[in-house]
């Protein structure tokens, strides 16, 4: 038996003839979600070792794979700049790595237009691995000298967190396309 929802609420997410998605919501949601992921250092988790996956980067890859072309190719620059403000990496690290990732993802997207989730996950895992290793190298250039073995737990968590992130992105994608504007 269906739960008794108010009819207005029941109709809310359904496509209707005289309703369309709000452009503000549709355009800002992806950017805001990635920036929220970049804010993860101010979440109430205080760690003495790198354990959390880089949520900002995971969300960026997730959006790019679910909706190729939604972000412009140059989106890595502003989003990376925002990430650098909070991540603790040397400034410019995310700008470089996210820009490069966006260009590379765009290339893969045109090379393999038809992909299943397994391929997406594989590609994302490769990107996450490369991102974490390069970020470590950049941090080491800036004065640290951590061994790559430090990354192993974080790498495992990040690769396993990708499917959940992809689901989150899909949820946000449905949210941003809710038809609420009257035409």
């Amino acid at each position, binding site marked *: 038996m269906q739960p008794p929802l108010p009819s207005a609420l029941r109709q809310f997410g359904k496509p209707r003839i005289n309703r369309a998605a709000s452009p503000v919501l549709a355009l800002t949601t992806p950017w805001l979600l990635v920036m929220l992921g970049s804010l993860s250092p101010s*979440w109430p988790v205080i760690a003495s070792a790198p354990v959390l996956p880089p949520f900002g980067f995971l969300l960026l890859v997730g959006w790019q794979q679910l909706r190729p072309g939604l972000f412009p190719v140059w989106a890595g620059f502003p989003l990376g700049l925002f990430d650098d403000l909070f991540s603790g990496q040397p400034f410019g690290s995310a700008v470089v790595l996210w820009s490069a990732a966006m260009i590379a993802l765009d290339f893969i997207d045109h090379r393999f237009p038809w992909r299943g989730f397994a391929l997406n996950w594989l590609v994302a895992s490769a990107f996450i691995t490369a991102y974490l290793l390069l970020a470590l190298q950049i941090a080491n250039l800036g004065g640290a000298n951590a061994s790559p073995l430090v990354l192993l737990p974080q790498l495992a968590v990040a690769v396993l967190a990708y499917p959940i992130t992809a689901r989150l992105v899909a949820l946000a994608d449905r949210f941003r396309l809710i038809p609420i504007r009257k035409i």
Partner: protein
Amino acid sequence: MAAPNNRRPGYSRRAQYGNFFGYILAVAGLAVGVIMLVISTGKSESFSGLRMAAADSAAPAAKAAANARTGSQSTRQIIAGYFTSGVRVARLEREVAEARVRLAEQAALAEENARLKAMLALTQGDQRPVVVTRMIGSTSSSTRRFATIGAGTNQGVRVGMAVRSPLGLVGRVVETGSTSARLLLVTDTESSVPVRRASDGLQGYANGLGDGTVQIRLSTTGINPLKRGDAIVTSGSGGIYRPGEAIAVVTSLTPDGAIARPLSDPGQTEFVAVEAVFEEIPEIVPAPAPKPGRKR
């Protein structure tokens, strides 16, 4: 889903140019990033103003989140407390009775200590912390170990001050904003703390390893006298950290020292105290410039 073919947008000149400039911008962004990286790796404090402004603006939300974190912890404790209250009341009453006796003994000892110090004419400055504040976040996804605390220059926090929790040393302040400051945790690979063994004063350094532990390197060479379970405290040389603050316990031995686990897990730490710089570092006097010779 297959991508909309953005690369060949048809005969529209405008779309073609837009596409082309998109790629130009992307590569330009990459280039600007490389320049930023070169600047910031050369001089780590170069973008700190920007970074601390961002940290200040995110601090209120982070403080609220930190509140929620401690709130949820105490809720769990309250629920658990209902099940064990009777046993604990009995135990606590016994402990209070014992503690009263100890307190009297301690008062006597403190009095004696003050008298002996007066005899030696030792001055003891006021060692109150600059500010007691909350830890509000840490760079949990980067290999660098920085944490943010909820007090900044407005509360008197300055770069170089040591930060400790009730259990021991946490790190030191490296960047300050007006209402928040950034710490270098002792587990960061750039952190190096002069330490000694608590029992006999064996000197060494505690260098962070970036994975939550520190590497103890001894100043002496030859046989490695460290053992598992040795307590490591700060030695105070260098003047940044006050001597005798607990920092870590040895967990395993290496050929030239040991791996030790810091006592104050930042994840369990709720409040931290920022301490004034123990000993002001004397101004470095620049060496007299060599006489300008002829350039060849």
